[in-house]
């Protein structure tokens, strides 16, 4: 009898032990959705696999979910059906929608709640600021950040007798005319026209894009770029468009890359992360420099682009410990250096920057340092801290529309920008209405 009872107890203990063993054998799954395909997606998978094999409690499942829009939509749809991922990469310019969604778990809280000690002071501050609340709490983790810089064709410059990259926009005009004379089809082109020629232009010249400190101080905002120096800048580009000093090559990056890498346009503004593509395609020497500015200003820091990682709310508490561990893993210096070098995105910690520098990375890739130094310029103001407006995707489409009307000479710069602001303000007002009662 006793023997039997002992046996049962032993069996029970064994089952219990087995149960525990099983629990630890089946790690908790953490879903991570992102919009980065190609080689960058491969690197995310690789880094995630490294994390998964470094411990056995959690398994992060990396999942490519299409473009930024598609990924965001997948997350929204999933959230409404309570099937959303733990982590999501969202486009930086669209941060406000996620920030006010009620669907997120601020990463600073998340990391703190789960005992991950992160030294925020060691981060590149302008990158962090972009994702902070007005009172300084970090909401999402900067991930794939870049900033536009000025690329130029050195061989073409030689041919036109130019030795230095242009410093001011007036220089760009003069250079463009010289390049035209030297036989080049076009002087200057740009990728991401709104980001570069409205947002970043405003940042460098220290003028506001929108009211309420570019939306940092409140959601009842209006665009202001039809009342600033942006108007003269756009009018100037429109003028240059007439004689080939400027060429419009489309809304995204492919057109600008094509025009630059084929030698058609000798100057281009494009993301610092565009390097790998340009290098593969260009059969000439090229270099990068700081974005030009107006001759009467001391340029301020530029604006970042790209995306950040958001943690979504509503999962079991135990999962978040794994989320925190994973995020902490991604911010480690070695990971950041690997990411920085592998993708061309900016490192988010100073330590990673120092390490890459010590390794001589910027000797081979000076454009990367240009981007970082341009972002880290001292003396940031309320006009140059960040840009945080609602319904980004919609308003940017309206601005693109009107810029095209300007480049196509259907409207003057002032008319086009007025219309862009009118349409943009309707979109901002709608966002404010949606989010007012909170």
């Amino acid at each position: 009898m006793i023997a039997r009872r002992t046996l049962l107890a032993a069996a029970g203990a064994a089952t219990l032990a087995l149960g525990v063993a099983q629990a630890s054998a089946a790690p908790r799954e953490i879903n991570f959705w992102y919009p980065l395909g190609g080689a960058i997606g491969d690197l995310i998978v690789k880094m995630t696999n490294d994390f998964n094999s470094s411990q056995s409690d959690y398994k992060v499942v990396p999942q490519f979910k299409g473009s930024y829009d598609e990924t965001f939509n997948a997350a929204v749809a999933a959230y409404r059906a309570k099937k959303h991922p733990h982590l999501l990469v969202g486009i930086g310019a669209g941060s406000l929608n996620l920030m006010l969604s009620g669907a997120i778990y601020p990463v600073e809280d998340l990391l703190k709640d789960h005992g991950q000690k992160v030294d925020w002071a060691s981060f590149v501050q302008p990158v962090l600021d972009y994702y902070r609340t007005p009172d300084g709490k970090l909401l999402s983790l900067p991930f794939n950040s870049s900033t536009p810089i000025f690329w130029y064709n050195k061989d073409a410059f030689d041919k036109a007798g130019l030795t230095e990259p242009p410093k001011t926009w007036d220089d760009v005009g003069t250079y463009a005319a010289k390049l035209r004379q030297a036989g080049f089809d076009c002087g200057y082109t740009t990728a991401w026209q709104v980001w570069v020629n409205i947002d970043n232009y405003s940042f460098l010249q220290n003028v506001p894009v929108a009211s309420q400190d570019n939306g940092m101080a409140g959601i009842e905002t209006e665009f202001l770029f039809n009342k600033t120096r942006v108007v003269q800048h756009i009018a100037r580009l429109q003028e240059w468009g007439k004689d080939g000093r400027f060429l419009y090559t489309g809304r995204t990056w492919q057109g600008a890359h094509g025009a630059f890498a084929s030698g058609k346009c000798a100057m281009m503004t494009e993301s610092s992360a565009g390097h790998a593509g340009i290098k593969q395609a260009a059969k000439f020497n090229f270099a990068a420099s700081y974005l030009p500015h107006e001759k009467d200003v001391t340029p301020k820091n530029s604006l970042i682009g790209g995306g950040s990682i958001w943690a979504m709310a509503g999962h079991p508490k135990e999962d978040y410990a794994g989320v925190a561990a994973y995020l902490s893993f991604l911010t480690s210096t070695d990971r950041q250096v690997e990411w920085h070098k592998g993708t061309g995105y900016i490192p988010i910690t100073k330590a990673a920057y120092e390490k890459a520098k010590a390794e001589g990375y910027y000797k081979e890739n000076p454009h990367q340092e240009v981007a970082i130094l341009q972002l880290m310029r001292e003396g940031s103001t309320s006009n140059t801290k960040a840009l945080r407006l609602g319904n980004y995707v919609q308003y940017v489409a309206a601005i693109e529309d009107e810029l095209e009307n300007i480049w196509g000479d259907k409207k003057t710069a002032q008319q086009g920008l007025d219309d862009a602001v009118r349409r943009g303000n309707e979109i901002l007002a709608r966002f404010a209405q949606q989010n007012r009662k909170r």
Partner: protein
Amino acid sequence: MIGKKVIFRSRGLPLLLLAPQLLVILVFFFWPAGQAVYQAFHLADPFGQHFEYVGLDNFRRLFNSPEYYASLWATTVFSAGVAIVSLGSGLLLAAFVDHVRRGRAVYKSLIIWPYAVAPVLAGVLWLFLFHPIYGVVAFALARIGIGWNPLLNSNQAMALVVMAAAWKQVSYNFVFFLAGLQAIPRSVLEAAAIDGAGPLYRFRTIVLPLLTPTTFFLLVINLVYAFFDTFGIIHAVTHGGPGGATNILVYKVFADGFIGQDLGSSAAQSIVLMVIVVSLTVLQFRFLERKVHYG
């Protein structure tokens, strides 16, 4: 609605036959579509936190917006263009394939296979051909002195998306037209030939009338295609630009709703779009189907 003269009498059976289809569309079409309609009268944030009844406000906004009227016009031009180009070239190709004796099978295969291309890929391919900066066709045009810039020229942009959309549809039309042509009894054409009717005359007076059922069917299919299934191509090729010139209604629904997450406005636009197409289709059924010959 046209039905059969000879019918079967049964009460339960037809409903039973319809049940699977009705069940599927009820759950996966009407339920979601109903929610979309409900949404059209609300202002909501996508995460479902804020939901506010706004009456007809979403519709009012549309009809007060100059961009919406521009989009209506672009849609008219676009769908007419797609229908004409894809039906026209489908018919021509079919007529010629039907005419030739040698190489028919090869021609057929070579015209049919592009039908299998996914729209996601088609958009990318068209950019590689027609992008003014890196497109090979644009390059060739520049060589011979033709200015091609759909990035800034609205008409060229429209022509480009019409071509791209029609390209996806030509094979489909071709197959149906060829089938229709081959169904025409040889004896009728031979009799006409003996009476001295030339090939063009025969085509106009015998072939075309006999193709009306096919044409009617294809017209409906093509218009529905142009109205609804083309936003992928627009999204890849022009993003609705330049300056909204190719921002057709369904792309606007897609861009405002799916990409821009303005569910209320997008739902209101879907309703307007459906009303337009349903009334167009009813008109077609009323006035065209009567004239259609069903063998």
